[in-house]
């Protein structure tokens, strides 16, 4: 029993402790801040605070009864804006939008907001609406409608400039400012857009018209092509029909045509038969009529020709006979004459033969003599020619020697001729010795004949250069003995 009581007490104490702890321990949720006031110590978060501390995101120990704990929501709030305002151009507009804002997360912002809105958190959008409405009027008053429509950056920038600082004072931050709608009672915006709309409409109508035109063109072209195709098809069909008709007609006419062809063949054959019959008849007539007539005519003609030939032959025979008789007579006379002539001729011939034989014999003798003479003359001439040739060869070989030889051979005659000049001289005195003798002798030789010029030259040359190896007739005059002997 006692154990049960003790256990009960302990349990109650534990429960009481847990309850007490639960009363004292407060936890700040993520979207709220705890603002704790009532104790001067532990002024955490605000160094020189106003006696309260701010706790976010964690738990803290609070003394119930001593300290007061308030919660400030950090959630998002929104304010619908509907502001009548006038633009820079004096055009009245109603701007509708929304502002999304919250309490700033930093401790300064939380402190500012806590001081201003802790008991009036429900009224926060209303306050913000007032602030924004006033600022929006002034902002819109500085803008034109075109700016507001086209330059949202400018609108938000100006809004931030005007309201940012204001909201900073309140510890709030603006997450988003959106202009939903700009109502335009005077229709300014609509009229502003009208030229563009008209232009767009015009372009649209132009495009539509162009498209219609193209479509119509395409349709008409298609129709034209269809008609063309139909025409071509009909032409082809007509052509084929014509071919079919032609073929059918040909087929229809085939029977009569073949019949006519057969008939034509028959006629041709009949004609051929008739021709053959006519030919046969002609042949018959030839054989029956013409050939006998021809034979008769031939017979008559042959007979006439034979008779004529017979008569001609008779006449010819007669003429021949006469001719032959005359010829025989003539032959007889001729024969007699011929015999006489032959006798005379034979005599003449015999005489001529005798004469000829005598002449021939004489001619042969004469010829033999002539030949012998000619042979001897020829031999002599040949010998002379040989001698001349040999002399010419010798002359060509050693001209002077040959001349000297010649001179030596004829020397006696020469000397004799030369000596003739001295024939009348009785006494001769030589004053110059052998040289004087030679000189005078040479002069005498010169006078002896013109043909001795050569000898004189030779002697002159002997006096200067006597030739060696040659028997010189001038050698004796050197010693001067030979001319004396001649005397």
């Amino acid at each position, binding site marked *: 029993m006692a154990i049960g009581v003790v256990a009960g007490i302990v349990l109650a104490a534990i429960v009481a402790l847990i309850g007490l702890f639960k009363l004292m321990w407060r936890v700040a949720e993520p979207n709220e801040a705890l603002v704790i006031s009532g104790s001067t110590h532990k002024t955490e978060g605000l160094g020189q605070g106003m006696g309260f501390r701010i706790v976010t995101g964690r738990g803290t120990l609070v003394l119930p009864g001593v300290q007061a704990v308030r919660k400030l929501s950090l959630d998002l709030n929104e304010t619908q804006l509907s502001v009548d305002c006038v633009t820079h151009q004096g055009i009245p507009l109603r701007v509708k939008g929304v502002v999304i804002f919250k309490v700033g997360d*930093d401790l300064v912002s939380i402190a500012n907001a806590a001081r201003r809105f802790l008991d009036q958190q429900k009224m926060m959008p209303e306050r913000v609406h007032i602030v924004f409405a006033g600022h929006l009027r002034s902002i819109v008053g500085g803008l034109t409608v075109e700016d507001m429509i086209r330059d949202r950056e400018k609108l938000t920038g100006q809004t931030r400039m005007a309201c940012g600082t204001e909201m*900073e004072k309140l510890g709030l931050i603006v997450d988003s400012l959106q202009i939903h709608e700009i109502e335009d009672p005077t229709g300014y915006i609509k009229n502003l857009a009208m030229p563009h709309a008209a232009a767009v409409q015009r372009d649209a109508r132009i495009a539509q018209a162009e498209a219609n035109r193209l479509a119509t063109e395409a349709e008409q072209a298609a129709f034209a092509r269809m008609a063309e195709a139909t025409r071509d098809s009909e032409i082809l069909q007509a052509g084929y029909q014509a071919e079919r008709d032609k073929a059918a007609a040909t087929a229809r006419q085939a029977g009569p045509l073949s019949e006519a062809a057969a008939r034509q063949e028959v006629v041709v054959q009949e004609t051929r038969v008739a021709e053959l019959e006519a030919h046969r008849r002609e042949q018959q007539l030839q054989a029956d009529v013409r050939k006998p007539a021809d034979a008769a005519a031939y017979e008559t003609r042959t007979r006439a020709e034979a008779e004529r030939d017979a008569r001609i032959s008779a006449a010819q025979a007669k003429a021949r006979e006469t001719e032959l008789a005359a010829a025989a007579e003539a032959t007889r006379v001729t024969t007699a004459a011929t015999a006489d002539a032959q006798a005379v001729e034979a005599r003449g011939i015999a005489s001529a033969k005798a004469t000829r034989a005598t002449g021939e014999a004489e001619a042969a003798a004469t010829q033999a003599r002539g030949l012998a003479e000619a042979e001897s003359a020829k031999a002599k001439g040949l010998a002379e020619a040989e001698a001349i040739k040999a002399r010419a060869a010798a002359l060509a070989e050693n001209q002077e020697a040959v001349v000297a030889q010649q001179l030596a051979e004829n020397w006696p005659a020469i000397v004799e001729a030369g000596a003739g000049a001295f024939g009348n001289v009785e006494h001769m005195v030589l004053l110059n010795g052998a040289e004087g003798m030679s000189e005078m002798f040479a002069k005498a030789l010169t006078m002896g004949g013109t043909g001795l010029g050569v000898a004189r030259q030779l002697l002159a040359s002997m006096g200067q250069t006597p030739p060696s190896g040659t028997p010189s007739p001038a050698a004796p005059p050197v010693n001067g003995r030979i001319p004396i002997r001649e005397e």
Partner: protein
Amino acid sequence: MGDTGADADMVGLTGRVTGTVGPGLVGEVIVRIRGGAEHFLAHPVSGTGRIAVGTVVTVVEYLPPRTVYVMAAYDN
């Protein structure tokens, strides 16, 4: 949680421009912070140039609660 530290750490973070930053404008950058991404009103640190949307920027100065001064992270 170190919230004070986190606020101080804003300086040096990189972010992306989502609304043109420039002189006379109130721009907007989105920065990864506190496990999420938040946007801040942004002004240029210096000069006359505009920083176009999409440019990567570095946070140079943080003025609580929601204002930063930025400069382009990469020249050109």
